[in-house]
């Protein structure tokens, strides 16, 4: 299969990809800061460091394609096109948040955008994605469905059962294992028996491992898996090796890994820096364009926070609504 080198992407695609990654980074860095001030309620899991993974996949998807995310969902949401201001309001628990303030960080969803939700249940997504892929196949929408799971989530029975179901039903599905080395404080080198690729192979799924810090590598692997699914070639798996910069959740003391380890990835393998270096060295984008995108992302997030802080919370009239469909 022809896999175009990422650098040959049209300029507007490169700009779009970098904007996605910058939006995610700016969003997560800012949520991290705001959480520390005590203004954001609940459990918050940040995606900073892993931006190239969501972006590399979502660049190939449209609104008829579905994804299921995890508890670490902000990056997937942004890349899938969820409104950033409405997301921020949701994280603050506001009435005009993306889910009316009823979901919060762990449950951001926008079905119109093909985003089936962040998920509070590890392993909750893969079966749902088999369902979305079944709909696409049955209704002949041409869509594909992608489940993102963590290294920890890859050990959940629901995930492994979904590999098999997707295979025997020949579904247009892709399973993306985002291996950021840890599940809470537990290292994936300990928790994952065998290997992600051998597991895929065991179920008859083609599998591919990629450097998740390299947008272009993810982009190509994603393209191969998504084109296969879309073309009727069935499900497959991509093992993305990546890294999260912040703690498991905001408030984690992160004693199970060393600061040096994190510093090293940030300094040498940061996905935004690598992208920037690649495109500027090749002369396809210039530094000014890149700086402008970064500044725009920060400005957008500034506005999102200001609006979220000022927005109204839901009230008593909202408590009992939407338990069921209203007729």
């Amino acid at each position, binding site marked *: 299969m022809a896999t175009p080198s990422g650098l040959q992407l049209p300029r507007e695609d490169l700009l779009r990809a970098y904007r996605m990654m910058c939006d995610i980074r700016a969003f997560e860095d800012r949520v991290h800061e705001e959480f520390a001030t005590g203004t954001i309620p609940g459990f918050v899991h940040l995606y900073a460091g892993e931006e190239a993974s969501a972006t590399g996949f979502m660049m190939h998807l449209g609104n008829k394609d579905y994804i299921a995310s995890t508890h670490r969902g902000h990056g997937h949401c942004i890349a899938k096109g969820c409104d950033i201001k409405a997301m921020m309001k949701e994280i603050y*628990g506001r009435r005009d948040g993306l889910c009316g303030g009823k979901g919060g960080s762990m449950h951001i969803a926008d079905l119109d955008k093909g985003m089936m939700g962040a998920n*509070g*249940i590890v392993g909750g997504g893969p079966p749902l994605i088999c369902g979305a892929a079944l709909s696409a196949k049955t209704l002949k929408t041409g869509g594909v469905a992608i489940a993102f799971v963590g290294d920890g989530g890859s050990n959940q029975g629901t995930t492994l059962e979904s590999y098999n179901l997707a295979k025997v039903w020949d579904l247009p599905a892709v399973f993306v294992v985002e291996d950021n080395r840890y599940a809470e404080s*537990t290292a994936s080198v300990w928790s994952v028996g065998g290997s992600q690729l051998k597991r895929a192979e065991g179920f008859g799924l083609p599998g591919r491992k990629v450097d998740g810090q390299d947008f272009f590598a993810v982009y190509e692997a994603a393209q191969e898996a998504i084109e296969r699914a879309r073309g009727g070639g069935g499900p497959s798996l991509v093992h993305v090796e990546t890294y999260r910069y912040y703690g498991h959740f905001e408030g984690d003391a992160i004693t199970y890994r060393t600061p040096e380890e994190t510093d090293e990835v940030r300094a040498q393998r940061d996905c935004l820096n690598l992208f920037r270096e690649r495109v500027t060295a090749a002369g396809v984008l210039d530094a000014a364009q890149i700086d402008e995108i970064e500044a725009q992302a920060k400005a957008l997030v500034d506005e999102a926070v200001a609006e979220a802080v000022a927005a109204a919370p839901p009230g008593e009239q909202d408590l*009992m609504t939407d*338990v069921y469909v209203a007729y």
Partner: protein
Amino acid sequence: MSRKTYRQAINEALAQEMRRDPTVVFMGEDNVGGMGAPGEDDAWGGVLGVTKGLMPEFGRERCLDTPISESAFIGAAVGAAATGLRPVAELMFVDFMGVCLDQIFNQAAKFRYMFGGKAVTPVVIRTMYGAGFRAASQHSQCLYPIFTHIPGLKVVMPSSPYEAKGLMIQAIRDDDPVIFLEHKVLYDDEEEVPDDPYTLPFGEANLTREGNDVTLVTLGRMVKFCNEVADKLEGDGIRCSVIDLRTTSPLDEDTILENAEETGRVVIVDESNPRCNIATDISALIAQNAFDALKAPIKMVTAPHTPPPFAPELEDLYIPDQAKIEAAVREVAAH
């Protein structure tokens, strides 16, 4: 005696039982933490630190971390219990019961009966429940009525640090499968707790307040709220009994009925959703057995029939609080 938090009380119960009985082991996700990782070894002690500090004394062989595979490790705890160990397995949040429920209700709960009395399954499943953490719909539920529904399970809900230690030691020594529900908002509550091991019996409710006017039947975190309301209303001349159920299965029917007959006015305070919950169960018990003694309709104070909402303003409305309990007590008292 010394002041201990709910968290410390549970930790101490585990430590003392592990010292006493080498067959006691515990397991769960990040219950020790740092497995395979380059940093601190006893890194987490569970998501809220309940089991922290035990591994250095008892070793990784008895303090087991698990992959995120609840069906497998909760089931393994059940299987180990049936074959010689006394495992204490942690289901991090009770909301995750859906992932592993078969191993609990079709396996653990039924072995003894199905096998004609030949099996014992002394497993304890520790799990965190309840609203108040802004943790949204999939991390804030109660769900204990579902366990209570199932014959063969014992369901324990400590309301304070003292209760937690005594009930945990009892749970570990008990030969039946026990679901031990820890309210996440109570972990930092502190009170005097004996240093030596002690047990509190299952199926014996605890009368935390005595009064002749209104009976409050309650459990878990709500006990604290009911005590506060009872103390406040005493000043207004409304004297309440507060019954802390301690266990919903077995249920101390005698204490509930005796007290209800005495006051004739009953408010049941249950944090769970209102259909088929503990409050409906106890209402039915009282209506069937103490109908003639009732001077007012039984009132229930529960969460509404919705998932727990995320926004703090909505979650506060969702949780049965002191104001709602007080209003209910005043209403039955005035009837």
